[in-house]
């Protein structure tokens, strides 16, 4: 399929490298087997891991959709050729309800506030019960899914329609849709992180928690898109237009959000450390005792210091191999980030890392690869009808 609608470029839809599909199927099968076994051996631990899986996939799906939206809103040119990749990763959202179902079967093991007899004797929890109760929880979760699906379908449909019609008004329409999406995104993302992760410790609260999760969301969505753009470009899927100047933009953005994450994470820590209020500090104390201390300190290196120095120089941001490696590194780091947020509630005595965690980890990556290879078959990987595409491909530093 070639298109000269708004852009004088030759784009021929090529088959994806079969490796993506193979990795996707392989990881998904191994992951699924381990996950099913895990649910038979230790359902509570599996349910906690299930939350990590759910939040990881939310990060990828919702973060990608957010990238699409800000690309429209900012009128960005350099990223136009990669918008379709972000849209394809937005499809990860569609699998979320299935991933969220097992959490429902283990709600009482996961969430302290679902026990009516506990809430009745606990003054703080009974004050929070108008928000933290099972009915409203369910309504909210359904609400998030409805909002996310709605915007996913609206924005991607319009974007893909432009491939065939080349109508420039479609861009304007999507700019409007994106502007509406942003506040919905901010609110649903914040409350989803509060509902699924922060309410694991219902006595604890942190007003920056939503922003903290957002920083990881954006970083991981950017990382997976960077990885696939570099990989697919090396396989020649985009033709000849994508060069190291585009890589540099991805590298710079990744680098910026590595710092953003560290800034937010430190802000959360420092305020709690400084004020030293018992109702807040116990959350960090749980992560500062026993083997969690080693994990927490190693985590500073994994999520901040190593990526910071790996991506600090200009040549490293334009180096495809380095970018691919750091993208995968950051995705693993985000997975560990979610692990750091969720698991100390399950095992406050020490880090619990075993085959159960490995199973969910493999399944997470398997699903992302599989959904990408499945969705990317049916669409052009460049938005060939977009009036900004030619300028995007011509982007140079």
């Amino acid at each position, binding site marked *: 399929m070639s298109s000269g609608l708004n852009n004088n470029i030759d784009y021929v839809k090529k088959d994806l490298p079969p490796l993506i599909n193979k990795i996707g199927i392989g990881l998904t099968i191994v992951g699924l087997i381990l996950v099913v076994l895990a649910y038979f051996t230790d359902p509570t631990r599996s349910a906690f891991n299930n939350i990590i899986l759910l939040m990881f996939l939310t990060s990828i799906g919702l973060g990608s959709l957010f990238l699409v939206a800000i690309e429209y809103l900012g009128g960005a040119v350099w990223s136009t050729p990669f918008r379709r990749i972000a849209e394809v990763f937005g499809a990860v959202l569609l699998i979320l309800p299935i991933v969220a179902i097992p959490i429902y079967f283990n709600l009482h093991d996961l969430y302290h506030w679902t026990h009516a007899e506990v809430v009745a004797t606990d003054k703080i929890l009974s004050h929070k019960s108008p928000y933290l109760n099972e009915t409203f929880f369910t309504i909210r979760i359904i609400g998030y899914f409805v909002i996310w699906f709605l915007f996913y379908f609206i924005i991607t449909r319009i974007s893909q329609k432009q491939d065939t019609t080349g109508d420039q008004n479609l861009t304007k329409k999507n700019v409007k849709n994106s502007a509406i999406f942003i506040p919905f995104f901010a609110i649903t993302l914040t409350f989803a992180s509060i509902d699924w992760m922060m309410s694991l410790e219902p006595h604890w609260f942190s007003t920056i928690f939503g922003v903290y999760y957002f920083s990881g969301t954006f970083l991981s969505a950017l990382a997976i898109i960077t990885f696939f753009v570099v990989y697919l470009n090396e396989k020649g899927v985009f033709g000849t237009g994508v060069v190291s100047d585009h890589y540099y933009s991805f590298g710079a953005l990744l680098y910026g959000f590595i710092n953003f994450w560290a800034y937010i994470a430190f802000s959360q820590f420092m305020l709690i450390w400084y004020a030293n209020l018992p109702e807040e500090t116990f959350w960090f104390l749980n992560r500062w005792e026993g083997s969690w201390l080693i994990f927490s300190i190693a985590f500073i290196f994994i999520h901040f210091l190593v990526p910071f120095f790996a991506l600090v120089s200009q040549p490293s941001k334009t180096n495809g191999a380095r970018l691919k490696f750091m993208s995968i590194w950051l995705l693993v780091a985000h997975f560990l980030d979610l692990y750091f947020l969720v698991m100390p509630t399950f095992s406050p005595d020490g880090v619990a890392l075993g085959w159960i965690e490995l199973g969910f980890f493999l399944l997470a990556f398997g699903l992302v690869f599989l959904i990408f290879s499945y969705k990317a078959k049916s669409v052009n990987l460049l938005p060939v009808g977009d009036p900004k595409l030619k300028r995007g491909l011509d982007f*140079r*530093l």
Partner: protein
Amino acid sequence: MSEKLYSYTALFDTPNDIIHAAKTVTEKGYTKFDVNTPYPIHGMDAAMKLPPSKLGFVTLFAGLGGTALALLMMGWMMGIDYPIVIGGKPFFPLPAFIPITFEITVLLATLTTVGALLFFFFKLPNNRHPLHDTNYMKNVSSDKYGICIETEDPKFNAEEIKELFASLHASTIEPVYFDDDEVNFKVVVADPKFLGFLVAVALFVSLSAYLHLNKLLYIVPFSWMDEQEKIVVQKKNDLFDNGLGMQEPVQGSVARGFIPYPFKDKPEEAGKLLVNPLIPDKDNLEVGKNKYNIYCSPCHGYLAEGDSRLNDQFPNPPSLHSEKVRTWSDGRLYHVIVEGQNVMPSYSYQLSRQERWAVVNYLRVLQRSLNAKETDL
């Protein structure tokens, strides 16, 4: 005045032309050339095959230096030189240092980058360049895109370059000449005019700072509430006849918590009528001992024998173990504490009523230690 050829220049009308020209000139093997454009053009680095800038390393090492400096500075000041407990945090509270460390890192990195840019890469204070004040420079700083190949280039040949520029469809091609004297002119920092200028600037800045901080700030309405429409303690007050800012209390008023002492100058009556309200017990004897050791022992001695550590510095107080003092009533002793006696001043400001009675009780204990009753055995 000796005019020498500096370079051949060409002007182009569009950014695409200049990118194309830069690429061609690079491909032809020229090395000593530069491109001048009104604004940075995307893709120019690649077209000129420029290596990545080294400026980043300056920033990196200045930043790392800032990090180390900030941590060492705060660690030394707050942990070693003058340790203070702040908010119950340790003497090296790393999380509290991070924001300041970050700021000093950024500050040092940016200032060093700008400084390096100006003095190392731009070679300030040298501000002379053959291209200055030429038709070429006027054009490329408004709406044209220019390229210039210098005579220092090993491949320089005026005719070839003119042909090359013509084949690239340059709108203007012209040579640039320069004056040896002008370019080799050295900036003299110790120039009297320059130094005079610096002195004038310094005088102006300090004078205006002085006027601002000492005069301007106190002109209404910048008086910072120094003058307020209210009557304070030492000010005149026209509301009352006596004109006092703070009125005296009404005759016979008693301050809260204050009980007047009715036996002023009447030691015998006090001895007869005052009754010790405290029954000696462990608690009030502890209080009495504590207060006695603080306020009484410097003169009377720890054992009340008048053998204090201040002995002979002024008239020695008598022993409190004398027959006279032992037979005094508690109230008589209390009176001495309240009013003082001979050289001894009043201790009513240092000791509360309860504490005075506690001291009396403790004194009785001291007296009995030397003159015990038979029943104590």
